[in-house]
């Protein structure tokens, strides 16, 4: 084939035609373009900030945040506290709703998923219609709709619904429940519970080793429960029952005492939970269906009873399929909790990214912190997912 001898071809063209050197050239060009872009943006930012007389610094975190946060269950907060404290309150509120949301979503999701697989036609169809309707409507609409239901349908505090023996009240100011009051000696009960849990874990390890060596099976679950409940109960009685309940009482226009679950929290928590539950239901259904029926038959063939089959054969294999997408649903729920701002629940987006941003005019700094917080949460959950995936991975030869 007639080919130009190497000496006659332009050396630059030769570099381009060689796959390795072409790769290097493309990468260098990419980095150059990227660096130029970043430099241009940095230059624009510096000039624009100077033009409006702003300074890039995180000093504002120590300024007093002159706004109230109606819901701060964990740490003390007043409108004289700093922006940093407001941000921490917001972060704790985000984590609170995400934590309880994940728990309720998992429970509801498993119930809906199993209902969908039920041999009962009616139960299966009810689950199908509910899941498909909820999944196909934006979560923001669910949050707003539930919030408006809670606020408009529930009666005012004066006419609060008594939903449990004069101790639980439902009103448009929130859900009032008795608050536990720990008296002296409660700490010792707590320590005893901790010791009991550690003993239960040690017992479980011992039981597993014994089973591996001798084949003897112990009812680990029941013994652990008995251990924890029994020890805690004895300690509780010995210390003279150091726990009482602060029951909410209607005084004037609102309740005094007890614990109030605010309507914002209630609406956000419920809406996020049932919305995510519908996605979890599909994951659970797919996971259970993916374990082939041959596995069940094989388990019966080697003589396992049906509950042992479920526990030792079906669930471990289904979990391997269910857990990774389940984790990303938890991640979605946490990210969706940022929609709290639409109904005024004070999470980190609403405190730092909302009011603090408006008050201090520090758009860059606040957004960097808010995004950083979400990134850290996301990376934590996904690294847990990777660790878990690695642990339960099929060992293939």
């Amino acid at each position, binding site marked *: 084939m007639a080919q130009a001898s190497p000496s006659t071809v332009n050396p630059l063209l030769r570099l381009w035609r060689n796959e390795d050197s072409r*790769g290097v050239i*493309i*990468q260098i060009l*990419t*980095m150059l373009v*990227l660096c130029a872009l970043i430099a241009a*943006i940095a230059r*624009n*930012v510096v*000039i*624009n*900030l100077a*033009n409006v007389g702003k300074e890039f610094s995180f000093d504002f975190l120590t300024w007093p945040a002159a706004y109230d946060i109606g819901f701060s269950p964990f740490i003390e907060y007043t409108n004289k506290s700093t922006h940093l404290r407001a941000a921490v309150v917001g972060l704790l509120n985000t984590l609170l709703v995400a934590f309880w949301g994940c728990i309720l979503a998992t429970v509801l999701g498993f119930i809906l998923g199993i209902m969908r697989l*039920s*041999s*009962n*036609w*009616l*139960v299966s169809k*009810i689950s199908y219609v509910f899941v*498909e*309707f909820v*999944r*196909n*409507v*934006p*979560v*923001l*609409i669910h949050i*707003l*709709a539930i919030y*408006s*239901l809670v606020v*408009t349908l529930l009666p005012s505090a004066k006419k609060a619904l008594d939903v449990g023996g004069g101790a639980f009240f439902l009103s448009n100011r929130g859900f009032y429940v008795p608050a536990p009051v720990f008296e002296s000696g409660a700490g010792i009960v707590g320590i005893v519970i901790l010791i009991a849990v550690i003993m239960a874990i040690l017992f479980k390890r011992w039981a597993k080793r014994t089973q591996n060596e001798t084949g003897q099976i112990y009812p680990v679950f029941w013994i652990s429960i008995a251990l924890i409940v029994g020890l805690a109960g004895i300690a509780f009685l010995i210390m003279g029952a150091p726990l009482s309940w602060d029951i909410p009482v209607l005084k004037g226009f609102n309740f005094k005492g007890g614990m109030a679950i605010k309507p914002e929290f209630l609406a956000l928590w419920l809406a996020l939970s049932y919305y995510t539950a519908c996605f979890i239901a599909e994951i659970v259904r797919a996971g259970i269906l993916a374990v082939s029926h041959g596995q069940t038959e094989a388990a019966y063939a080697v003589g396992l009873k049906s509950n042992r089959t479920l526990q030792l054969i079906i669930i471990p294999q289904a979990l391997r399929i269910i857990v990774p997408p389940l984790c990303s649903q938890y991640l979605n729920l946490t*990210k*969706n909790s*940022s*929609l709290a*701002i*639409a109904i005024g629940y004070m999470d980190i*987006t609403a405190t730092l*990214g909302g009011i603090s*941003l408006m008050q201090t005019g520090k*758009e*860059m700094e606040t*957004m960097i912190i*808010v*995004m950083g917080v*979400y*990134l850290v949460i*996301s*990376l934590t959950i996904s690294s847990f997912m990777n660790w878990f995936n690695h642990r339960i991975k099929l060992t293939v030869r």
Partner: protein
Amino acid sequence: MSQTSPPDSYTPGSHPDLPPPVRTTGALGWARKNLLSSPLNIALTLVSVWLLWSIVPPAFNWLFTEAVWAASDRKECWALMTEPRSGGCWAFIRGSFNLFVYGWFPEPERWRVNLTFVLFALAIVGALRESLPGRKYWLWFAVAFPFIAAWLLLGGFGLTPIGTNKLGGILLTLVVAVTGISFSLPIGVALALGRRSNLPALRAVCVIFIEFIRGVPLITLLFVASTMLTYFLPPGSTFDLLMRVLIMVTLFASAYIAEVVRGGLQGLPAGQYEAADSLGLTYWKAHRLIILPQALKISIPGIVNTFIGSYKDSVLVLIIGMMDILGLGRARLNDPDWLGLAPELYIFISLFFFISCFGMARYSLSLERKLQTGHKS
């Protein structure tokens, strides 16, 4: 056939077939099998029937029987019902319908919006119906549609220019969603290829971009668009808010598309890559002819899911003050004539989203079945 008394005995094999037992066929058999097969099942059925009985008839009453379809304000609605609030006041939705669809688009120019909707329907049909004659041109039309729509809606080149702040309602929702969907696919495929590339620098850039976008909520990106993106631009230049939001929505969706497409690329057997290499195809030819057609086919369910997610996410623009269908609806709730009609509004908007998203999901299912080319590996 004349009925004769049956003989006392049959020779083996000559007995006529008996009908199946009544209890195993027909409605009764079906109910026995699917609803009443065990005590637990009977209990579940009873609970379900009770649940449906306590929800469906009152809901039907509220939605249809007692509902009022024409009235000029809520007082008139209440007057037309047996008692106030015993039914839905759909007159509210009917009265605001034009606003919900067109936003503040000037009345005499609304034919442009209607034309855009018609072209949109044509583009969808053209892109999805394979049996259409001249399909190639239909596809080109579908690709060109976003640009034609931009011209029709924003004006210029012979049409009266209209500011983006005039867009609202369903129109704005569709603009955000369709832009996000149509531009995120090419960008997402490019990012996925970048993430699987052999060039470390390119790969690192793509990984950082994708993981960053997927790690933060869309709402924070929208805040960035509304509050700080102008700092990134050369001093003195302004940039339309809608444009900034569209860019963010597109980038957000493309990171998710990239991960879905990467899954498809990884799902292809290595033999496909090796076969393309051994034929002597270049990187681009191999991807265009062999890799991407198969990888995209595997990722269709994921891509459509991302589209649905992106469509649903378009309502978040309300939080930065843009008046999409949800934002406009909530603004109308403050109208003194229609105070307190939140249930009607949310039911209407939920139905709007449910119909479109459920439609997309069903289409993706049927497409999956159609593209299933036999052997499963």
